[in-house]
Protein backbone atom coordinates (compact mmCIF):
# COMPACT_ATOMS: atom_id res chain seq x y z
CA UNK A 1 0.00 0.00 0.00
CA UNK A 2 1.35 3.41 -0.91
CA UNK A 3 0.63 6.18 1.55
CA UNK A 4 -1.42 9.18 0.45
CA UNK A 5 1.38 11.56 1.50
CA UNK A 6 3.73 9.81 -0.88
CA UNK A 7 1.35 10.05 -3.84
CA UNK A 8 0.67 13.72 -3.17
CA UNK A 9 4.39 14.48 -2.75
CA UNK A 10 5.24 12.70 -5.97
CA UNK A 11 2.59 14.70 -7.80
CA UNK A 12 4.10 17.97 -6.55
CA UNK A 13 7.63 16.83 -7.26
CA UNK A 14 6.95 15.47 -10.73
CA UNK A 15 9.21 17.97 -12.61
CA UNK A 16 12.26 16.72 -10.69
CA UNK A 17 11.19 13.09 -11.04
CA UNK A 18 10.95 13.47 -14.82
CA UNK A 19 14.28 15.30 -14.96
CA UNK A 20 15.99 12.61 -12.87
CA UNK A 21 14.54 9.66 -14.76
CA UNK A 22 15.22 11.52 -18.02
CA UNK A 23 18.86 11.89 -17.02
CA UNK A 24 19.15 8.10 -16.62
CA UNK A 25 17.37 7.66 -19.95
CA UNK A 26 19.75 10.03 -21.72
CA UNK A 27 22.79 8.21 -20.32
CA UNK A 28 21.38 4.90 -21.56
CA UNK A 29 20.42 6.40 -24.89
CA UNK A 30 23.92 7.79 -25.40
CA UNK A 31 25.54 4.49 -24.42
CA UNK A 32 23.30 2.39 -26.66
CA UNK A 33 23.09 4.53 -29.82
CA UNK A 34 26.49 6.28 -29.73
CA UNK A 35 24.82 9.20 -31.47
CA UNK A 36 25.02 12.74 -30.12
CA UNK A 37 21.80 13.71 -31.90
CA UNK A 38 19.77 10.93 -30.22
CA UNK A 39 20.92 11.93 -26.73
CA UNK A 40 20.30 15.59 -27.47
CA UNK A 41 16.78 14.94 -28.83
CA UNK A 42 15.82 12.94 -25.74
CA UNK A 43 17.27 15.69 -23.51
CA UNK A 44 15.16 18.28 -25.30
CA UNK A 45 12.01 16.18 -24.84
CA UNK A 46 12.72 15.63 -21.12
CA UNK A 47 13.48 19.32 -20.54
CA UNK A 48 10.29 20.30 -22.35
CA UNK A 49 8.22 17.83 -20.30
CA UNK A 50 9.65 19.06 -17.01
CA UNK A 51 9.02 22.68 -18.06
CA UNK A 52 5.36 21.88 -18.74
CA UNK A 53 5.10 20.19 -15.33
CA UNK A 54 6.81 23.18 -13.69
CA UNK A 55 4.20 25.51 -15.20
CA UNK A 56 1.49 23.28 -13.74
CA UNK A 57 3.20 23.14 -10.35
CA UNK A 58 3.32 26.95 -10.14
CA UNK A 59 -0.40 27.16 -9.39
CA UNK A 60 -0.40 24.88 -6.34
CA UNK A 61 -0.33 26.46 -2.86
CA UNK A 62 2.82 26.12 -0.71
CA UNK A 63 3.13 22.59 0.60
CA UNK A 64 5.48 20.29 2.44
CA UNK A 65 6.49 17.17 0.59
CA UNK A 66 7.86 13.75 1.52
CA UNK A 67 7.12 13.93 5.26
CA UNK A 68 8.62 17.38 5.73
CA UNK A 69 11.82 16.70 3.79
CA UNK A 70 11.17 19.42 1.22
CA UNK A 71 9.04 22.54 1.02
CA UNK A 72 7.49 23.61 -2.26
CA UNK A 73 6.69 27.29 -1.80
CA UNK A 74 6.96 30.29 -4.16
CA UNK A 75 10.62 30.77 -3.20
CA UNK A 76 11.37 27.20 -4.25
CA UNK A 77 9.47 27.72 -7.51
CA UNK A 78 11.62 30.68 -8.50
CA UNK A 79 14.75 28.60 -7.95
CA UNK A 80 13.29 25.58 -9.74
CA UNK A 81 12.86 27.78 -12.79
CA UNK A 82 16.36 29.21 -12.41
CA UNK A 83 17.78 25.67 -12.21
CA UNK A 84 15.75 24.62 -15.23
CA UNK A 85 16.99 27.66 -17.16
CA UNK A 86 20.61 26.89 -16.28
CA UNK A 87 20.32 23.29 -17.45
CA UNK A 88 18.49 24.19 -20.67
CA UNK A 89 20.93 26.93 -21.69
CA UNK A 90 23.99 24.87 -20.78
CA UNK A 91 22.69 21.91 -22.79
CA UNK A 92 22.41 24.23 -25.80
CA UNK A 93 26.03 25.28 -25.32
CA UNK A 94 27.19 21.71 -24.74
CA UNK A 95 25.69 20.68 -28.08
CA UNK A 96 27.99 23.14 -29.90
CA UNK A 97 31.13 23.01 -27.81
CA UNK A 98 33.67 20.43 -28.86
CA UNK A 99 35.65 20.00 -25.65
CA UNK A 100 34.01 16.75 -24.51
CA UNK A 101 34.51 13.64 -26.63
CA UNK A 102 31.32 12.80 -28.62
CA UNK A 103 31.58 9.27 -27.23
CA UNK A 104 30.60 10.53 -23.79
CA UNK A 105 27.92 12.98 -24.87
CA UNK A 106 25.04 10.98 -23.34
CA UNK A 107 26.81 10.82 -19.97
CA UNK A 108 27.66 14.52 -20.24
CA UNK A 109 24.03 15.59 -20.77
CA UNK A 110 22.74 13.07 -18.21
CA UNK A 111 25.07 14.40 -15.51
CA UNK A 112 24.05 17.98 -16.33
CA UNK A 113 20.42 17.02 -15.77
CA UNK A 114 21.26 15.30 -12.47
CA UNK A 115 22.91 18.56 -11.40
CA UNK A 116 19.63 20.26 -12.31
CA UNK A 117 17.70 17.96 -9.95
CA UNK A 118 20.26 18.67 -7.22
CA UNK A 119 19.96 22.43 -7.71
CA UNK A 120 16.18 22.25 -7.39
CA UNK A 121 16.49 20.09 -4.26
CA UNK A 122 18.93 22.53 -2.65
CA UNK A 123 16.30 25.25 -2.95
CA UNK A 124 13.53 23.00 -1.61
CA UNK A 125 15.34 21.28 1.25
CA UNK A 126 13.65 21.64 4.61
CA UNK A 127 15.69 19.07 6.50
CA UNK A 128 19.41 18.94 7.27
CA UNK A 129 19.82 15.49 5.75
CA UNK A 130 18.06 16.55 2.57
CA UNK A 131 20.09 19.77 2.35
CA UNK A 132 23.33 17.84 2.68
CA UNK A 133 22.33 15.25 0.09
CA UNK A 134 21.23 17.94 -2.35
CA UNK A 135 24.59 19.70 -1.99
CA UNK A 136 26.44 16.43 -2.53
CA UNK A 137 24.28 15.58 -5.54
CA UNK A 138 25.33 18.87 -7.13
CA UNK A 139 28.95 18.66 -5.97
CA UNK A 140 29.86 15.08 -6.84
CA UNK A 141 28.35 15.40 -10.30
CA UNK A 142 30.13 18.73 -10.80
CA UNK A 143 33.54 17.24 -9.90
CA UNK A 144 33.03 14.61 -12.58
CA UNK A 145 31.76 17.09 -15.18
CA UNK A 146 34.82 19.29 -14.59
CA UNK A 147 37.17 16.36 -15.23
CA UNK A 148 35.33 15.09 -18.30
CA UNK A 149 37.69 16.41 -20.99
CA UNK A 150 40.85 14.71 -22.07
CA UNK A 151 43.54 17.21 -21.11
CA UNK A 152 45.53 17.18 -17.90
CA UNK A 153 44.33 20.64 -16.87
CA UNK A 154 40.79 19.33 -16.63
CA UNK A 155 41.83 16.43 -14.38
CA UNK A 156 43.77 18.78 -12.14
CA UNK A 157 40.76 21.07 -11.89
CA UNK A 158 38.48 18.14 -11.08
CA UNK A 159 40.82 16.90 -8.36
CA UNK A 160 41.22 20.37 -6.83
CA UNK A 161 37.48 20.85 -6.83
CA UNK A 162 37.00 17.44 -5.22
CA UNK A 163 39.51 18.13 -2.43
CA UNK A 164 38.20 21.60 -1.64
CA UNK A 165 34.62 20.35 -1.87
CA UNK A 166 35.27 17.39 0.42
CA UNK A 167 36.87 19.68 3.00
CA UNK A 168 33.97 22.13 2.89
CA UNK A 169 31.43 19.30 3.13
CA UNK A 170 33.28 17.95 6.13
CA UNK A 171 33.22 21.32 7.89
CA UNK A 172 29.54 21.77 7.07
CA UNK A 173 28.67 18.28 8.35
CA UNK A 174 30.47 19.08 11.59
CA UNK A 175 28.29 22.16 11.98
CA UNK A 176 25.16 20.19 11.16
CA UNK A 177 26.03 17.49 13.69
CA UNK A 178 26.56 20.13 16.38
CA UNK A 179 23.20 21.70 15.51
CA UNK A 180 21.56 18.30 15.75
CA UNK A 181 23.36 17.56 18.98
CA UNK A 182 22.13 20.76 20.62
CA UNK A 183 18.57 20.83 19.30
CA UNK A 184 17.92 17.13 18.76
CA UNK A 185 16.10 17.94 15.53
CA UNK A 186 16.85 17.72 11.81
CA UNK A 187 13.87 19.44 10.22
CA UNK A 188 14.30 23.21 9.75
CA UNK A 189 11.04 24.34 11.47
CA UNK A 190 11.72 22.08 14.47
CA UNK A 191 15.30 23.39 14.79
CA UNK A 192 13.96 26.93 14.69
CA UNK A 193 11.56 26.18 17.56
CA UNK A 194 14.27 24.45 19.56
CA UNK A 195 16.65 27.37 19.09
CA UNK A 196 14.07 29.81 20.40
CA UNK A 197 13.75 27.81 23.62
CA UNK A 198 17.51 27.41 24.02
CA UNK A 199 19.24 28.56 27.26
CA UNK A 200 21.59 31.45 26.59
CA UNK A 201 24.59 29.42 27.81
CA UNK A 202 24.39 27.35 24.61
CA UNK A 203 24.06 30.29 22.25
CA UNK A 204 27.79 30.41 21.54
CA UNK A 205 27.84 26.74 20.66
CA UNK A 206 24.91 27.20 18.29
CA UNK A 207 26.51 30.23 16.70
CA UNK A 208 29.66 28.19 16.09
CA UNK A 209 27.60 25.39 14.54
CA UNK A 210 25.82 27.88 12.29
CA UNK A 211 29.18 29.39 11.38
CA UNK A 212 30.53 26.01 10.30
CA UNK A 213 27.42 25.33 8.19
CA UNK A 214 27.84 28.77 6.64
CA UNK A 215 31.46 27.99 5.75
CA UNK A 216 30.25 25.03 3.71
CA UNK A 217 27.73 27.19 1.89
CA UNK A 218 30.32 29.95 1.40
CA UNK A 219 32.55 27.43 -0.41
CA UNK A 220 29.69 26.60 -2.75
CA UNK A 221 29.02 30.22 -3.70
CA UNK A 222 32.79 31.09 -3.79
CA UNK A 223 32.64 33.71 -1.10
CA UNK A 224 36.05 35.10 -0.06
CA UNK A 225 38.09 33.62 1.72
CA UNK A 226 36.66 30.31 0.49
CA UNK A 227 36.99 31.18 -3.20
CA UNK A 228 40.48 29.86 -3.93
CA UNK A 229 39.28 26.91 -6.00
CA UNK A 230 37.18 29.02 -8.34
CA UNK A 231 39.67 30.32 -10.97
CA UNK A 232 41.53 27.03 -11.39
CA UNK A 233 38.38 24.94 -11.63
CA UNK A 234 36.72 27.36 -14.05
CA UNK A 235 39.83 27.40 -16.22
CA UNK A 236 40.16 23.62 -16.43
CA UNK A 237 36.51 22.68 -16.91
CA UNK A 238 34.81 22.42 -20.33
CA UNK A 239 33.35 25.88 -21.12
CA UNK A 240 29.65 24.83 -20.79
CA UNK A 241 30.40 23.24 -17.41
CA UNK A 242 32.12 26.45 -16.30
CA UNK A 243 29.00 28.32 -17.37
CA UNK A 244 26.84 25.95 -15.31
CA UNK A 245 29.12 26.24 -12.25
CA UNK A 246 29.11 30.02 -12.42
CA UNK A 247 25.33 30.28 -12.12
CA UNK A 248 23.70 27.03 -10.92
CA UNK A 249 25.39 26.24 -7.60
CA UNK A 250 25.62 29.97 -6.81
CA UNK A 251 21.84 30.44 -7.15
CA UNK A 252 21.01 27.23 -5.28
CA UNK A 253 23.58 28.06 -2.59
CA UNK A 254 21.87 31.40 -2.00
CA UNK A 255 18.47 29.65 -1.85
CA UNK A 256 19.70 27.22 0.79
CA UNK A 257 21.46 29.95 2.73
CA UNK A 258 18.28 32.06 2.78
CA UNK A 259 16.43 29.08 4.28
CA UNK A 260 19.21 28.34 6.78
CA UNK A 261 19.23 31.97 7.94
CA UNK A 262 15.46 31.83 8.43
CA UNK A 263 15.97 28.67 10.47
CA UNK A 264 18.70 30.01 12.74
CA UNK A 265 17.31 33.54 13.10
CA UNK A 266 17.71 33.49 16.95
CA UNK A 267 21.50 33.02 16.75
CA UNK A 268 22.26 34.57 13.34
CA UNK A 269 23.11 37.90 15.02
CA UNK A 270 26.48 36.46 16.08
CA UNK A 271 27.45 35.55 12.49
CA UNK A 272 25.94 38.55 10.71
CA UNK A 273 28.84 41.03 11.24
CA UNK A 274 31.31 38.57 9.71
CA UNK A 275 29.08 38.12 6.66
CA UNK A 276 28.72 41.90 6.42
CA UNK A 277 32.50 42.39 6.21
CA UNK A 278 33.08 39.42 3.95
CA UNK A 279 30.49 40.83 1.54
CA UNK A 280 32.67 43.89 0.99
CA UNK A 281 35.87 41.81 0.87
CA UNK A 282 34.35 39.35 -1.61
CA UNK A 283 33.34 41.93 -4.18
CA UNK A 284 36.59 43.85 -3.85
CA UNK A 285 38.87 40.81 -4.12
CA UNK A 286 36.91 39.41 -7.07
CA UNK A 287 36.93 42.63 -9.04
CA UNK A 288 40.54 43.60 -8.31
CA UNK A 289 41.82 40.14 -9.24
CA UNK A 290 39.78 40.17 -12.44
CA UNK A 291 41.61 43.29 -13.65
CA UNK A 292 44.83 41.46 -14.47
CA UNK A 293 43.43 38.30 -16.05
CA UNK A 294 44.24 37.38 -19.64
CA UNK A 295 42.38 34.06 -19.82
CA UNK A 296 38.72 34.80 -20.44
CA UNK A 297 37.50 31.90 -18.25
CA UNK A 298 39.64 33.04 -15.32
CA UNK A 299 38.41 36.58 -15.90
CA UNK A 300 34.80 35.44 -15.74
CA UNK A 301 35.64 33.35 -12.66
CA UNK A 302 36.84 36.43 -10.76
CA UNK A 303 33.91 38.38 -12.18
CA UNK A 304 31.64 35.71 -10.69
CA UNK A 305 33.25 36.23 -7.28
CA UNK A 306 32.60 39.96 -7.65
CA UNK A 307 28.97 39.31 -8.60
CA UNK A 308 28.56 36.99 -5.60
CA UNK A 309 29.72 39.92 -3.49
CA UNK A 310 26.87 42.09 -4.82
CA UNK A 311 24.39 39.27 -4.18
CA UNK A 312 25.65 38.91 -0.61
CA UNK A 313 24.44 42.47 0.07
CA UNK A 314 20.90 41.13 -0.09
CA UNK A 315 21.79 38.42 2.40
CA UNK A 316 23.61 40.81 4.75
CA UNK A 317 20.68 43.19 5.12
CA UNK A 318 18.25 40.33 5.87
CA UNK A 319 15.08 42.14 4.79
CA UNK A 320 12.31 41.06 2.45
CA UNK A 321 13.52 43.72 0.03
CA UNK A 322 17.01 42.23 0.17
CA UNK A 323 15.78 38.74 -0.66
CA UNK A 324 13.60 40.07 -3.49
CA UNK A 325 16.63 41.89 -4.85
CA UNK A 326 18.65 38.65 -4.70
CA UNK A 327 15.96 36.87 -6.72
CA UNK A 328 15.80 39.60 -9.37
CA UNK A 329 19.58 39.81 -9.61
CA UNK A 330 19.92 36.03 -9.89
CA UNK A 331 17.39 36.02 -12.74
CA UNK A 332 19.39 38.77 -14.45
CA UNK A 333 22.65 37.00 -13.70
CA UNK A 334 21.33 33.78 -15.24
CA UNK A 335 20.72 35.47 -18.58
CA UNK A 336 23.70 37.82 -18.73
CA UNK A 337 26.35 35.43 -17.42
CA UNK A 338 25.19 32.43 -19.45
CA UNK A 339 24.93 34.77 -22.45
CA UNK A 340 28.53 35.86 -21.91
CA UNK A 341 29.58 32.22 -21.66
CA UNK A 342 27.68 31.40 -24.86
CA UNK A 343 29.87 34.04 -26.56
CA UNK A 344 32.95 32.38 -25.03
CA UNK A 345 31.77 29.00 -26.37
CA UNK A 346 31.41 30.48 -29.86
CA UNK A 347 34.85 32.15 -29.77
CA UNK A 348 36.70 29.23 -28.14
CA UNK A 349 35.16 26.67 -30.51
CA UNK A 350 36.27 28.81 -33.45
CA UNK A 351 39.77 29.83 -32.38
CA UNK A 352 40.71 27.12 -29.88
CA UNK A 353 42.18 29.84 -27.67
CA UNK A 354 40.81 30.92 -24.31
CA UNK A 355 42.82 34.13 -24.24
CA UNK A 356 41.09 37.50 -24.15
CA UNK A 357 43.02 38.24 -27.37
CA UNK A 358 40.79 35.75 -29.19
CA UNK A 359 38.02 38.37 -28.93
CA UNK A 360 40.11 40.87 -30.91
CA UNK A 361 38.25 42.41 -33.83
CA UNK A 362 35.21 40.23 -33.23
CA UNK A 363 32.95 43.07 -34.35
CA UNK A 364 34.26 42.73 -37.90
CA UNK A 365 34.14 38.94 -38.00
CA UNK A 366 30.76 38.47 -36.33
CA UNK A 367 28.90 41.76 -35.78
CA UNK A 368 25.83 40.21 -34.11
CA UNK A 369 27.88 38.03 -31.76
CA UNK A 370 30.01 41.02 -30.78
CA UNK A 371 26.91 43.13 -30.14
CA UNK A 372 25.35 40.39 -27.95
CA UNK A 373 28.61 39.99 -26.07
CA UNK A 374 28.80 43.75 -25.47
CA UNK A 375 25.22 43.75 -24.15
CA UNK A 376 25.96 40.93 -21.70
CA UNK A 377 29.17 42.52 -20.46
CA UNK A 378 27.56 45.93 -20.00
CA UNK A 379 24.70 44.27 -18.15
CA UNK A 380 27.20 42.46 -15.89
CA UNK A 381 28.81 45.84 -15.29
CA UNK A 382 25.36 47.14 -14.31
CA UNK A 383 24.73 49.83 -16.90
CA UNK A 384 21.14 50.94 -17.59
CA UNK A 385 18.85 50.13 -19.32
CA UNK A 386 19.90 46.47 -19.08
CA UNK A 387 18.56 43.75 -16.74
CA UNK A 388 21.73 43.72 -14.62
CA UNK A 389 21.19 47.38 -13.74
CA UNK A 390 17.69 46.64 -12.38
CA UNK A 391 19.08 43.90 -10.14
CA UNK A 392 21.95 46.01 -8.84
CA UNK A 393 19.63 48.98 -8.30
CA UNK A 394 17.38 46.81 -6.11
CA UNK A 395 20.34 45.33 -4.19
CA UNK A 396 21.91 48.72 -3.45
CA UNK A 397 18.43 50.12 -2.72
CA UNK A 398 17.83 47.35 -0.18
CA UNK A 399 21.14 48.22 1.49
CA UNK A 400 20.24 51.92 1.75
CA UNK A 401 16.74 51.10 2.99
CA UNK A 402 18.14 49.16 5.94
CA UNK A 403 20.71 51.84 6.85
CA UNK A 404 23.65 49.87 5.44
CA UNK A 405 24.78 52.74 3.24
CA UNK A 406 28.38 51.56 3.31
CA UNK A 407 27.46 48.31 1.61
CA UNK A 408 25.83 50.29 -1.19
CA UNK A 409 28.87 52.57 -1.48
CA UNK A 410 31.20 49.56 -1.65
CA UNK A 411 28.95 48.08 -4.34
CA UNK A 412 29.02 51.25 -6.44
CA UNK A 413 32.81 51.63 -6.15
CA UNK A 414 33.25 48.00 -7.17
CA UNK A 415 30.92 48.41 -10.13
CA UNK A 416 33.22 51.18 -11.32
CA UNK A 417 36.27 48.91 -11.00
CA UNK A 418 34.45 46.10 -12.79
CA UNK A 419 33.54 48.38 -15.66
CA UNK A 420 37.24 48.52 -16.59
CA UNK A 421 37.70 44.84 -17.34
CA UNK A 422 34.27 44.39 -18.92
CA UNK A 423 34.83 47.36 -21.24
CA UNK A 424 38.34 46.13 -22.02
CA UNK A 425 36.83 43.09 -23.77
CA UNK A 426 34.44 45.38 -25.67
CA UNK A 427 37.43 47.51 -26.68
CA UNK A 428 39.20 44.39 -27.98
CA UNK A 429 36.13 43.47 -30.00
CA UNK A 430 35.42 46.86 -31.52
CA UNK A 431 38.65 48.87 -31.70
CA UNK A 432 41.39 46.34 -32.46
CA UNK A 433 41.88 44.53 -35.74
CA UNK A 434 41.14 40.80 -35.85
CA UNK A 435 43.83 38.10 -35.77
CA UNK A 436 42.13 36.30 -38.66
CA UNK A 437 39.89 37.85 -41.26
CA UNK A 438 37.49 34.99 -41.93
CA UNK A 439 33.97 35.53 -40.57
CA UNK A 440 32.87 33.62 -37.47
CA UNK A 441 29.45 31.99 -37.54
CA UNK A 442 28.34 30.55 -34.21
CA UNK A 443 26.52 27.21 -34.36
CA UNK A 444 22.72 27.29 -34.41
CA UNK A 445 22.21 26.15 -30.80
CA UNK A 446 24.58 28.85 -29.50
CA UNK A 447 22.63 31.36 -31.59
CA UNK A 448 19.44 30.23 -29.83
CA UNK A 449 21.10 30.58 -26.41
CA UNK A 450 22.46 34.01 -27.36
CA UNK A 451 19.06 35.08 -28.65
CA UNK A 452 17.18 33.99 -25.52
CA UNK A 453 19.72 35.58 -23.17
CA UNK A 454 20.05 38.74 -25.26
CA UNK A 455 16.30 39.32 -25.56
CA UNK A 456 15.78 38.66 -21.84
CA UNK A 457 18.66 40.96 -20.82
CA UNK A 458 17.33 43.85 -22.90
CA UNK A 459 13.56 43.37 -22.55
CA UNK A 460 13.53 42.80 -18.77
CA UNK A 461 15.92 45.73 -18.44
CA UNK A 462 13.54 48.07 -20.24
CA UNK A 463 10.29 46.56 -18.90
CA UNK A 464 11.16 45.06 -15.49
CA UNK A 465 7.54 45.04 -14.31
CA UNK A 466 7.02 41.46 -15.55
CA UNK A 467 9.84 40.20 -13.34
CA UNK A 468 8.60 42.21 -10.37
CA UNK A 469 5.12 40.74 -10.77
CA UNK A 470 6.64 37.26 -10.81
CA UNK A 471 8.89 37.82 -7.80
CA UNK A 472 6.27 39.66 -5.76
CA UNK A 473 4.47 37.49 -3.26
CA UNK A 474 7.44 35.17 -2.98
CA UNK A 475 8.59 36.60 0.32
Amino acid at each position, binding site marked *: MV*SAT*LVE*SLRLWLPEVIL*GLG*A*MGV*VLCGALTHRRAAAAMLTAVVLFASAVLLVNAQATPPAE*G*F*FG*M*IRLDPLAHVFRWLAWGVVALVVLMAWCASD*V*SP*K*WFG*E*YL*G*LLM*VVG*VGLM*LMAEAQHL*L*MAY*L*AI*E*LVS*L*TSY*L*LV*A*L*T*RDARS*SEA*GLKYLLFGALSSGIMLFGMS*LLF*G*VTGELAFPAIREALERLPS*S*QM*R*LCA*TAVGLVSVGLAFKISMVPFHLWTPDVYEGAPVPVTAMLSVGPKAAGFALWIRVIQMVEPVWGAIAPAVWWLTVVTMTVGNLAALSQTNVKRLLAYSTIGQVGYLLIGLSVRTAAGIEAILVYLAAYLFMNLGAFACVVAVVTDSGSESVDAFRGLARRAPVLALCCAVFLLSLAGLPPLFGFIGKFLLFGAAIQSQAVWLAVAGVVNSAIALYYYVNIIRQMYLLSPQQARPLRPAAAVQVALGVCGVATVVFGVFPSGVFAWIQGVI
Partner: protein
Amino acid sequence: MITWLLCAVVVVGAVWVVSLRNLFRAALSLGLVLVGVAGLFLTLGAEFLAFVQILIYVGAVLTLVVFAIMLTSRATSAEPADVSRYRLPAVIVSGALFGLLLSVTSTLRPPALPGASEGAVTVSALGQALVTTFVLPFEVISVLFVAAMVGAIAVASAKK
Protein backbone atom coordinates in the same frame (compact mmCIF):
# COMPACT_ATOMS: atom_id res chain seq x y z
CA MET B 1 36.52 3.34 31.00
CA ILE B 2 36.24 1.43 27.73
CA THR B 3 34.81 4.58 26.12
CA TRP B 4 37.94 6.55 26.99
CA LEU B 5 40.12 3.74 25.68
CA LEU B 6 38.24 3.79 22.38
CA CYS B 7 38.50 7.58 22.24
CA ALA B 8 42.27 7.32 22.70
CA VAL B 9 42.47 4.74 19.89
CA VAL B 10 40.48 7.01 17.56
CA VAL B 11 42.53 10.12 18.34
CA VAL B 12 45.90 8.39 18.05
CA GLY B 13 44.81 6.72 14.80
CA ALA B 14 43.59 10.03 13.39
CA VAL B 15 46.89 11.73 14.20
CA TRP B 16 48.75 8.89 12.50
CA VAL B 17 46.57 9.20 9.38
CA VAL B 18 47.72 12.77 8.79
CA SER B 19 51.27 12.52 10.16
CA LEU B 20 52.66 9.20 8.88
CA ARG B 21 54.81 9.64 5.77
CA ASN B 22 54.11 6.17 4.39
CA LEU B 23 50.71 6.24 2.68
CA PHE B 24 50.07 2.56 3.27
CA ARG B 25 50.57 2.88 7.01
CA ALA B 26 48.35 5.97 7.00
CA ALA B 27 45.60 3.90 5.35
CA LEU B 28 45.93 1.19 8.00
CA SER B 29 45.70 3.88 10.70
CA LEU B 30 42.49 5.01 9.04
CA GLY B 31 41.22 1.46 9.55
CA LEU B 32 42.07 1.77 13.24
CA VAL B 33 40.06 5.00 13.46
CA LEU B 34 37.08 3.42 11.70
CA VAL B 35 37.08 0.37 13.97
CA GLY B 36 37.40 2.63 17.00
CA VAL B 37 34.38 4.64 15.90
CA ALA B 38 32.43 1.41 15.43
CA GLY B 39 33.35 0.53 19.00
CA LEU B 40 32.09 3.92 20.19
CA PHE B 41 28.79 3.26 18.42
CA LEU B 42 28.56 -0.06 20.29
CA THR B 43 29.07 1.55 23.67
CA LEU B 44 26.30 4.03 22.78
CA GLY B 45 23.87 1.17 22.12
CA ALA B 46 23.75 1.60 18.33
CA GLU B 47 24.52 -2.01 17.40
CA PHE B 48 23.20 -1.78 13.86
CA LEU B 49 25.20 1.37 13.12
CA ALA B 50 28.37 -0.25 14.50
CA PHE B 51 27.78 -3.28 12.30
CA VAL B 52 27.23 -1.13 9.20
CA GLN B 53 30.27 0.99 10.06
CA ILE B 54 32.50 -2.09 10.04
CA LEU B 55 30.85 -3.61 7.00
CA ILE B 56 30.98 -0.50 4.80
CA TYR B 57 33.88 1.60 6.04
CA VAL B 58 36.32 -1.07 7.15
CA GLY B 59 35.11 -3.69 4.71
CA ALA B 60 34.58 -1.69 1.55
CA VAL B 61 35.95 1.85 1.75
CA LEU B 62 39.24 0.93 3.38
CA THR B 63 39.76 -1.93 0.94
CA LEU B 64 39.27 0.51 -1.93
CA VAL B 65 41.71 2.97 -0.39
CA VAL B 66 44.32 0.24 0.02
CA PHE B 67 43.75 -0.90 -3.56
CA ALA B 68 44.17 2.66 -4.83
CA ILE B 69 47.44 3.02 -2.91
CA MET B 70 48.80 -0.32 -4.10
CA LEU B 71 47.90 0.38 -7.72
CA THR B 72 49.53 3.79 -7.85
CA SER B 73 53.23 3.19 -8.22
CA ARG B 74 55.82 4.42 -5.73
CA ALA B 75 53.33 4.80 -2.96
CA THR B 76 54.17 1.57 -1.17
CA SER B 77 57.86 2.38 -1.04
CA ALA B 78 59.20 4.17 2.00
CA GLU B 79 59.73 7.31 -0.09
CA PRO B 80 58.07 10.17 1.76
CA ALA B 81 55.06 11.87 0.23
CA ASP B 82 55.51 15.50 -0.74
CA VAL B 83 55.57 17.72 2.29
CA SER B 84 53.12 20.56 2.10
CA ARG B 85 54.59 24.05 1.96
CA TYR B 86 51.75 25.31 4.10
CA ARG B 87 52.41 23.22 7.17
CA LEU B 88 52.58 26.10 9.63
CA PRO B 89 49.41 27.90 8.44
CA ALA B 90 47.62 24.55 8.40
CA VAL B 91 48.64 23.85 11.99
CA ILE B 92 47.57 27.34 13.07
CA VAL B 93 44.17 27.14 11.36
CA SER B 94 43.32 23.68 12.60
CA GLY B 95 44.62 24.53 16.06
CA ALA B 96 42.42 27.62 16.17
CA LEU B 97 39.38 25.66 14.98
CA PHE B 98 40.06 22.99 17.59
CA GLY B 99 40.39 25.60 20.33
CA LEU B 100 37.15 27.26 19.28
CA LEU B 101 35.25 23.96 19.27
CA LEU B 102 36.74 22.97 22.59
CA SER B 103 35.75 26.26 24.21
CA VAL B 104 32.16 26.20 22.95
CA THR B 105 31.51 22.53 23.67
CA SER B 106 33.06 22.58 27.14
CA THR B 107 29.71 23.63 28.66
CA LEU B 108 27.93 20.62 27.21
CA ARG B 109 27.02 17.80 29.55
CA PRO B 110 26.12 14.54 27.85
CA PRO B 111 22.56 13.42 28.63
CA ALA B 112 22.12 10.16 30.48
CA LEU B 113 22.43 7.32 27.99
CA PRO B 114 19.29 5.33 27.44
CA GLY B 115 19.51 1.70 28.40
CA ALA B 116 20.40 -0.66 25.58
CA SER B 117 16.89 -2.10 25.44
CA GLU B 118 14.88 1.14 25.22
CA GLY B 119 17.34 2.98 22.95
CA ALA B 120 17.79 0.14 20.47
CA VAL B 121 16.25 0.52 17.03
CA THR B 122 15.23 -2.68 15.34
CA VAL B 123 16.31 -3.39 11.79
CA SER B 124 12.72 -3.71 10.64
CA ALA B 125 11.95 -0.24 12.05
CA LEU B 126 14.92 1.11 10.12
CA GLY B 127 13.66 -0.56 6.96
CA GLN B 128 10.18 0.90 7.51
CA ALA B 129 11.65 4.39 7.91
CA LEU B 130 13.66 4.03 4.69
CA VAL B 131 10.54 3.51 2.59
CA THR B 132 8.33 6.03 4.37
CA THR B 133 9.80 9.06 6.16
CA PHE B 134 13.19 8.81 4.53
CA VAL B 135 12.14 7.63 1.11
CA LEU B 136 13.22 10.82 -0.67
CA PRO B 137 16.77 10.87 0.74
CA PHE B 138 16.98 7.15 0.00
CA GLU B 139 16.03 7.68 -3.64
CA VAL B 140 18.25 10.75 -4.01
CA ILE B 141 21.21 8.75 -2.72
CA SER B 142 20.43 6.11 -5.34
CA VAL B 143 20.47 8.73 -8.11
CA LEU B 144 23.67 10.16 -6.65
CA PHE B 145 25.41 6.77 -6.71
CA VAL B 146 24.33 5.99 -10.25
CA ALA B 147 25.46 9.41 -11.46
CA ALA B 148 28.78 9.10 -9.60
CA MET B 149 29.42 5.65 -11.05
CA VAL B 150 28.50 6.61 -14.60
CA GLY B 151 30.57 9.77 -14.35
CA ALA B 152 33.57 8.00 -12.85
CA ILE B 153 33.57 5.44 -15.64
CA ALA B 154 33.28 8.21 -18.23
CA VAL B 155 36.14 10.20 -16.67
CA ALA B 156 38.36 7.14 -16.35
CA SER B 157 37.79 6.05 -19.96
CA ALA B 158 37.98 9.54 -21.43
CA LYS B 159 41.59 9.83 -20.28
CA LYS B 160 42.75 6.88 -22.40
